[in-house]
C-alpha cells in the first residue's frame, strides 16, 4: 500500500518535472509579429476570410500571402490598423465599409429553430427551441455567419442602432471641408 502510493507519487513528480524542464528547454519561439496581428483581430474565428480561424489568417498576413483587407468583420478599421502595423499603404476603395453592423432578428418571422445560435462564434444569439431569438448587441461582431442559416430570412445585418449608451458627439467638421461652403 505504502509502496504503491510512494512509487506513483515519485513517478508522477519525476515525469512532471521532466516535462516542465523539457517545456523550457525545447520552447519554440513563435513569430512575435503573428501574435501582434492576431491581437488586433476580432478573434471570433468566424472563417469568412477562408482561413481556419484568426490565428491562420494572422500567419498568412504576416507572411504576405493574404492582404490586410481579408477580414470582413474587421472592415476598414482593422485594415487601417494592420497597414499601419506592417508599414504598407493600402487602397481603401476596395474595402466597402458600411460602418459597424450587427445581426438582428425579425421577431415576426422567427420560428425559433435555433439554427443561428449554433453557428454564432461569439454565442451572441439568445434563444431556445420554438422561442423567438434575440441578439446580444454587445457580443455580436457582425460576422454574418447566421444570415445564411436562417430558413425564414429573419436574420439581417443592420447598422448598429444608436442608443443612449452608444451615442457620442459627432466630430466637428474640419476647415478644409467647410471652406467651399463658405466661399
Amino acid at each position, binding site marked *: 500500500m505504502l*509502496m*504503491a502510493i510512494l*512509487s*506513483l507519487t515519485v*513517478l*508522477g513528480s519525476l*515525469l*512532471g518535472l*521532466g*516535462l516542465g524542464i*523539457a*517545456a523550457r528547454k*525545447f*520552447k*519554440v519561439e513563435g513569430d512575435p509579429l503573428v501574435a501582434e496581428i492576431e491581437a488586433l483581430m476580432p478573434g471570433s474565428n468566424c472563417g469568412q476570410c477562408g482561413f481556419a480561424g484568426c490565428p491562420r489568417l494572422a500567419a498568412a498576413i504576416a507572411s504576405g500571402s493574404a492582404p490586410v483587407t481579408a477580414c470582413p468583420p474587421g472592415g476598414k478599421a482593422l485594415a487601417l490598423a494592420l497597414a499601419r502595423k506592417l508599414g504598407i499603404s493600402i487602397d481603401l476603395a476596395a474595402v466597402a465599409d458600411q460602418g459597424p453592423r450587427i445581426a438582428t432578428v425579425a421577431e415576426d418571422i422567427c420560428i425559433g429553430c435555433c439554427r443561428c445560435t449554433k453557428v454564432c462564434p461569439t454565442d451572441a444569439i439568445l434563444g431556445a427551441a420554438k422561442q423567438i431569438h434575440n441578439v446580444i448587441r454587445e457580443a455580436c461582431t457582425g460576422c454574418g455567419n447566421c444570415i445564411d442559416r436562417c430558413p425564414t430570412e429573419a436574420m439581417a445585418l443592420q447598422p448598429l442602432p444608436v442608443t443612449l449608451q452608444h451615442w457620442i458627439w459627432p466630430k466637428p467638421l474640419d476647415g478644409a471641408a467647410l471652406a467651399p461652403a463658405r466661399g
Partner: protein
Amino acid sequence: MTAYLLLLLSTALVNNVVLVKFLGLCPFMGVAKSMDSALGMGLATTFVITLACAATWMLEHWLLLPFDLAYLRILSFILVIAATVQFVEMVVKKSAPTLYQALGIYLPLITTNCAVLGVALLTAQESMGFAQTLVYGFGSALGFTLVMLMFAGLRERLALARVPAAFAGAPVSFILASLLALAFMGFAGLNF
C-alpha cells in the same frame, strides 16, 4: 529472426489490432475519411505505439514487477504513455518542424488512444522480452496503418457511390467496416 518476422506478420494481419481485437475504433471511424489524414494518423500511431511499448516494458520490469505492484499497471501505463507522447511532441516541434506539421495534430489525439494502451497492456500480460515487445508493438501499429489506409481508400470510393438515403453517411461506413473485419477473419486460418 524468422520468429520475429512471423510475430510481425501475425500481429499485423492475423491479430489485427483494429479488425480482430477491435481496439482504436475511434480514429478508424473518425479520421479514416481521406488517404492523407489516414496516412498521417497511421504514421503517428506507429511512432507512438512502438515508443509506448518500449517505455512501458521498462516500467513493468524495473518498477512494477520488482515491487509487486502489477495491479497499478493501467494507471501507471497511462501516466507514462501520456508523458512520453508530450515529451516527444515537444522534441519534434523543436527539432523537426516539417515532421511536426505532418504528425503534430494527431499526436495529442492518440495520447490516450485505446489501441496504444491496449497493445502495451497485452505485451505486459504475455510477459514478452524487450525485443519481442518492440516487434509486437511495431507489427500492431503496421496493421493499424494498413487498415486505416484500406478503409480510407474504400470510403473515398464510397463517397462517389449512390447509397440509399437511409444508409448514407455513418451506417454504410459501419457495414463497410464489418465487411472488412469479415475479410480479415480469413487470416485466422494462417497457422505458423
